[in-house]
């Protein structure tokens, strides 16, 4: 399992994304945009042209951060991933319509998303859940925030410039899923332990 993390600076080509495989650790640099339930619903309800440029080639990050005001701007206090599966109904469409490079979250996603990743050459990256402070430190700059008034702090779109943001590829563009593999192995052990 030991592998050197691969440094990836966005924007990255579809070719590079398609070359990533599950289990690969990455240090990601570039733009990520946070979006949770309200954000995904918003992006799918209607095509939002003003989000097209922002999202194209960027990663959507499933995260509801803790932010504090600092002068005119904002500072990220804690920003770990939140459970991705809640966005399963919307994710495939967000990938297809906005041509994002992929998704960062936790827990993995379902078959519909997996198909969209394959179709559009995108990947699902898993961050360490609960590592709120550590991940917040990898945010170099808060570029802007959208829909803050409407959605509130955790649900707003925070546009973040990250540097060496540590993640693991757990769903790749070839249909691979580390979640599926670990689940299958665990299921075999469960049956063995319980004599089922």
């Amino acid at each position, binding site marked *: *399992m*030991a*592998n050197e993390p691969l440094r990836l600076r966005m924007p990255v080509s579809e070719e590079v994304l398609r070359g990533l495989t599950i*289990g690969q*650790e990455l240090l990601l640099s570039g733009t990520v945009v946070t979006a949770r339930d309200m954000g995904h619903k918003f992006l799918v309800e209607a095509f939002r042209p003003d989000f097209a440029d922002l999202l194209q080639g960027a990663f959507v990050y499933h*995260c*509801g*951060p*803790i932010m*504090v005001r600092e002068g005119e701007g904002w500072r990220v*206090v*804690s*920003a*770990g991933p*939140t*459970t991705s599966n809640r966005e399963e109904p919307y994710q495939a469409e967000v990938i297809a319509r906005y041509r994002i490079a992929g998704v960062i979250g*936790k*827990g*993995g996603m379902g078959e519909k998303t997996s198909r969209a990743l394959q179709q559009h050459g995108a990947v699902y990256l*898993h961050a*360490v*859940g*609960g*590592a*709120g*402070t*550590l*991940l*917040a*430190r990898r945010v170099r700059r808060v570029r802007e925030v959208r829909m803050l008034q409407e959605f*509130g*702090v*955790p649900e707003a779109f925070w546009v973040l410039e990250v540097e060496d943001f*540590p993640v*693991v590829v*757990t769903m790749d563009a070839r249909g691979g899923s*580390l*979640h599926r*593999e*670990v*689940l299958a*192995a*665990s*299921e075999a*052990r*469960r049956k063995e*332990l*319980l*004599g*089922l």
Partner: protein
Amino acid sequence: MDPLVNWALELIRKTSTDLSPDVERWLRRAREEEAEGGTAWNVLDAMIRNVEMSREAGTPICQDTGLTTFFVQVPRGTDPEAIREALQQAIRLATQEGSLRPNSVHPITGKNTGDNLGVDLPHIEFEPSPDDGLVIDLLLKGGGSENTGAQYRLPDAGLKAGRDLEGVYRCVVDAVHHAQGHGCAPGILGVCIGGDRAGGYAGAKRQLLRPLDDTNPDPALAELEERLIRDCNRLGVGPMGFGGRTTVLAVKVGWKHRHPASFFVSIAYSCWADRHRRLEVRNGVGKVF
């Protein structure tokens, strides 16, 4: 201001930003078990470094600071309502300063109250104190880990689980398998055998307050806990569900009397960020442990 508000605020801050030393120690031990530089090792290492950074900076370990549950031992002659008000006030302040993320939303409309207060929030369980000390335990438990809890009703034919300790074992192994990494593994499990449905879950959650290095006073349960830790780790789910040796850090089992017709096994899953702390007020002085 009521000094209790200040102490309770200190309790919340410390719980949110400084992981209990026993949990941190267990994470370090787990890291030693994994191959250095491998993904499981790196994940545990990130958790440990995150704990250190959060303590130094005084920032929340995880941005999901969870729902607030207090277990309060009230000395004779103290008004529980006054304690409730002080805790509410402390939560309001902790939310304003960012030690807690606003997490209380209306179940239907989704509207956030903005201050972490609401119907049954904070959740407080009062009991009489054995002496004249006021003791307040706080548990902050995030949504992802709460969602991975489970309750079984024995017998369970699918699991070949009967109404005995072997049956309990089977439920817990099954629950840990189903949880995979979703509750931010490695997890700490609180288990309650018996009780009614509500009491079972409450009892399971209370087990999470036990120090990780204690030994169950009931030898049969102590043995069950050991066996569960060993076998759940054989599932290979690993830190965050990426695969690895450490799937659970600890299992704590308690029990309650039950109705003859019901046999519940309730499981509270805490993520690795198992945040709980204690405030004791004695002789007019409050101290957070």
